[in-house]
């Protein structure tokens, strides 16, 4: 894992952002549904704060602008694949411009639960053009690290059944209409997502972490990877607020 200085955009600079001002570190946790990303992010967040770093964590559909709209759109049955991709990209852009970039300017460690890669994987799993979505999401910053929690679909199934006890409509890709059975659909859809993420490992420099291991072991490996980024110790500061406009 290399640390890039300064941060760069993939293909399209975001208007109004000077990358030389971005002091913080951008760390992305990627992986399929139910792989245990949020557990690990909670652990990493606590650990990094104990180490004296200011941490912002953010994830999909949490933007002030589009979070609510996405949740509402997913309640209906009319959300098409391109619309979904673009809605999530809007959500991502809003968080990037209003949360992630300001936090990086202030020297935070930004932990992101799923980045553009999940949006891209979902889009390609639904038959959309990979090149199209790569360019659409080209305004994303290249993270310092993309830690990919990888496992086989059988392991995801056991985590879903033992954990939540039920399959989710969208995590099962029911909109793809593989059939009426949620279990079979989950398996097919998650396999497609894992395949799509696997193809990104090399071009997007993912660090692959075996997520079939016990939680503490995965965490130790994540800690090791994050330590390699040589984070500076920063005095704890409050996250910068969304810019108020009058």
């Amino acid at each position, binding site marked *: 894992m290399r640390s890039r200085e300064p941060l760069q955009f993939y293909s399209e600079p975001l208007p109004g952002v000077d990358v030389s001002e971005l002091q913080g570190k951008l760390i992305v946790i990627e992986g399929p549904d139910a792989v245990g990303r949020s557990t690990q992010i909670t652990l990493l967040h606590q650990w990094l704060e104990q180490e004296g770093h200011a941490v912002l964590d953010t994830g999909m559909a949490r933007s002030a602008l589009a979070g*609510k*709209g996405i949740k509402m759109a997913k309640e209906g049955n*009319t959300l098409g694949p391109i619309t979904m991709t673009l809605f999530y990209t*809007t959500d991502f852009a809003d968080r990037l411009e209003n949360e992630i970039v300001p936090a990086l300017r202030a020297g935070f460690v930004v932990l992101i639960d799923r980045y553009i890669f999940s949006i891209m994987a979902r889009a390609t799993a639904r038959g959309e053009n990979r090149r*199209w979505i790569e*360019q659409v999401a080209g305004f994303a910053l290249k993270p310092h690290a993309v830690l990919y929690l990888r496992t086989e679909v059988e392991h995801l199934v056991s985590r879903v059944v033992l954990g939540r006890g039920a399959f989710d409509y969208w995590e099962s890709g029911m909109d793809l209409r593989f059939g009426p059975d949620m279990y079979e659909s989950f398996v097919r859809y998650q396999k497609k997502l894992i395949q799509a993420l696997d193809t990104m490992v090399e071009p997007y420099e993912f660090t692959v972490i075996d997520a079939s291991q016990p939680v503490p072991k995965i965490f130790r490996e994540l800690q090791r990877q994050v330590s390699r980024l040589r984070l500076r110790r920063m005095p704890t500061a409050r996250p910068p607020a969304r810019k108020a406009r009058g």
Partner: protein
Amino acid sequence: MSLFVPNRYRGKLIVVEGIDGSGKSTQLSLLSHWLRSQGFAVAFSEWNSSPLVRETTRRGKKKEMFTPTTFSLIHCTDFADRMESYILPLVKAGAIVCADRYSYTAFARDVARGVSRRWVRNLYRFAIHPNLAFYFRVPLDVALGRILGGRDAIKYYEAGMDLGLARDVEESFRIFQGRILDEYEAMAEEMGFHIIDATQSIEEQQRRMRDIVMSEIGDDPKNGILHAPEGGEFHAQPGTAPIL
């Protein structure tokens, strides 16, 4: 790489473009009523009208949360929903879909807002290629006169107030619309717009539009477009979705 997906279906897609106050909506309304009276199945789609996305756009505008990038993305999300659940299925089914504003609006407006031209053009690559794109060419002062004369207050983003072009709303609107007009003019030839002189009388503009539309549709009864049985008018009430 081509800009749009070619329309290989039975139906037709007719779009109108132009700056605010160019009179395009009036003309499209006249055209669609006339096509309907000729027995064609006509559907209508307006910019920024997706029921899934509208609420997010409305909130973002009200709270002034948009940047050029998110403004561009949310409008494309709205467009995508209309494309996937409305325009495309209807064109496939053989309807004539009339769209008040299309991707070109984003190409002009978002670029005038500072978004990269290449990026916004890629964004809309899933759109189907219109059979006819009418561009209502109008001098800035004529359009501004129509808008500033009658309507309610100009809204924040319409005036491009987010760009800080001027402190006065009308002045900002003038500058911003001027930039959009420049973008339209710059792409007119490349995009194959049918240019309508929007300073002419309403009747003359409409006559030109109908001529162009008829030569596109042709009079072959087997052209595939959904049509009511001979002499009858297509049975649908204005205001009922999906076919008006």
